[in-house]
């Protein structure tokens, strides 16, 4: 039976600007469909947030580009607050000062500010993000912490920091005293497509990252997490391997394209006001804010319905999956990376395929989890 769809999504992701003060080599935004030349004016965002308020949306996640690059960001946030919602912001951190942090804290509505930090030292972080930006980002984190805001860090793992993960964890969790941080890796989207050779992990580096992150995750109990990238892959793949060895029956939801549940609870808007299912699926145009009926789009748009029905597609049908012993335990993973690598949304993602990884010479880490 198909899962019921909520009348409106709980969260909406909003790319509030297409502009950024940086050009990180693996940014998923630039060179992607959401990379547009002109931002929408404040007034149109205000109208949109009023509609979100009427739809009883709970949270808005602001990203970009770089959200703090917008001069009118405070007005945008005030509009979110006025419409009885909370907000989170994904940022490179370099434009956040004490004054801005104090403003965010005063709203009382901030759920999270996520800052990108990719190194324990400036040369590593700045390698792909530009000189001087490590110190600026750390200064931004300190300003947020001084104002008691919930701040976290996302570490994008790439070829120049994969040997520095232990130092990064120590820096973030011990020196900066963050409660936790998350990791992913440079994935085949946006600018990364052009810079894949320099940024994307090789199979050996991926193996190393998985092993190191599992060890660190164990050491810093619960303070390192991931929904994508080497740590998430390691956790998921080890579970799959164990299930295969024990010849377990297919668990509920496995063996089909169930890898993403996003279309059931969230939707997104590009900087040009185009409604999309997810910012990583920026080419799937569902409508335009302030023009199309947002809730009609949410409930009935065929492409959104199609994404929700991916979970009915069996992995057995794909030549890509032929002879794979992990099919009964696999979810096919992210539809966006599936699209960027194969041109099809309704396809398993090669990026996170265990069978492909092992056939390419990858090795699963030994299980190092301690039991106290």
């Amino acid at each position, binding site marked *: 039976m198909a899962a019921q769809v909520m009348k409106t999504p709980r969260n909406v992701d909003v790319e509030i600007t297409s502009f950024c003060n940086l050009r990180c080599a693996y940014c998923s935004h630039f060179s992607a469909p959401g990379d547009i030349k002109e931002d929408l004016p404040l007034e149109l965002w205000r109208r949109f947030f009023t509609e979100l308020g009427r739809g*009883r949306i*709970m949270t808005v996640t602001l990203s970009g580009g770089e959200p703090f690059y917008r001069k009118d960001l405070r007005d945008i946030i005030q509009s979110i607050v006025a419409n009885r919602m909370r907000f989170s912001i994904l940022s490179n951190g370099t434009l956040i000062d004490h004054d801005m942090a104090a403003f965010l804290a005063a709203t009382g509505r901030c759920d999270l500010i996520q800052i990108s930090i990719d190194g324990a030292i400036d040369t590593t972080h700045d390698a792909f993000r530009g000189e001087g930006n490590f110190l600026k980002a750390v200064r931004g984190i300190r300003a947020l912490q001084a104002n008691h805001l919930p701040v976290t860090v996302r570490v994008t793992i790439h070829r120049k920091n994969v040997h520095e993960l232990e130092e990064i964890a120590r820096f973030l969790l011990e020196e900066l005293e963050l409660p936790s941080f998350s990791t992913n890796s440079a994935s085949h989207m946006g600018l990364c497509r052009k810079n894949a050779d320099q940024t994307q992990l090789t199979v050996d580096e991926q193996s190393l990252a998985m092993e190191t992150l599992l060890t660190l995750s164990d050491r810093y109990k619960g303070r390192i997490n991931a929904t994508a990238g080497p740590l998430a892959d390691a956790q998921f793949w080890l579970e799959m391997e164990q299930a295969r060895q024990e010849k377990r029956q297919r668990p509920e939801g496995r063996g089909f394209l169930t890898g993403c549940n996003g279309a059931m609870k969230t939707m997104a808007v590009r900087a040009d006001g185009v409604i999309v299912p997810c910012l990583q699926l920026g080419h799937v145009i569902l409508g335009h804010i302030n023009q199309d009926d947002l809730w009609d789009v949410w409930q009935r748009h065929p492409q959104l319905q199609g994404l929700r029905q991916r979970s009915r597609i069996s992995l057995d049908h794909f030549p890509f999956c032929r002879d794979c012993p992990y099919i009964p335990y696999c979810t096919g993973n992210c539809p966006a990376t599936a699209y960027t690598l194969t041109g099809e949304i309704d396809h398993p993602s090669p990026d996170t395929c265990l069978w492909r990884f092992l056939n390419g010479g990858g090795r699963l880490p030994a299980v190092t989890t301690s039991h106290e």
Partner: protein
Amino acid sequence: MNENNKKAIIAGPLVVLREEFDDWAVLFDPETGNAFGLNPIGVLIWKHFDGRHSIDDIADVIRKRAEAIPDDMQDHLEDFVQATIDIGLAVYEAE
């Protein structure tokens, strides 16, 4: 007799009622980020936190509209109202 039973109740002006499904709703307080699940009877009660209905009034509404009402319905209603007041989602209307 609870002396509060005659007082009108009013929902916090910022509290959001999200009716997610026909049989499930969420009360969301954007000031705290707290969210609480409601079944259809909870929604019916919440919609009467309008400054014009008291616990006794709402109990009458439930008796008229609901089926298979338990004997201790009024106790549950009083507990529900008190819980929403304790967590800052509603107040008794000032006399």
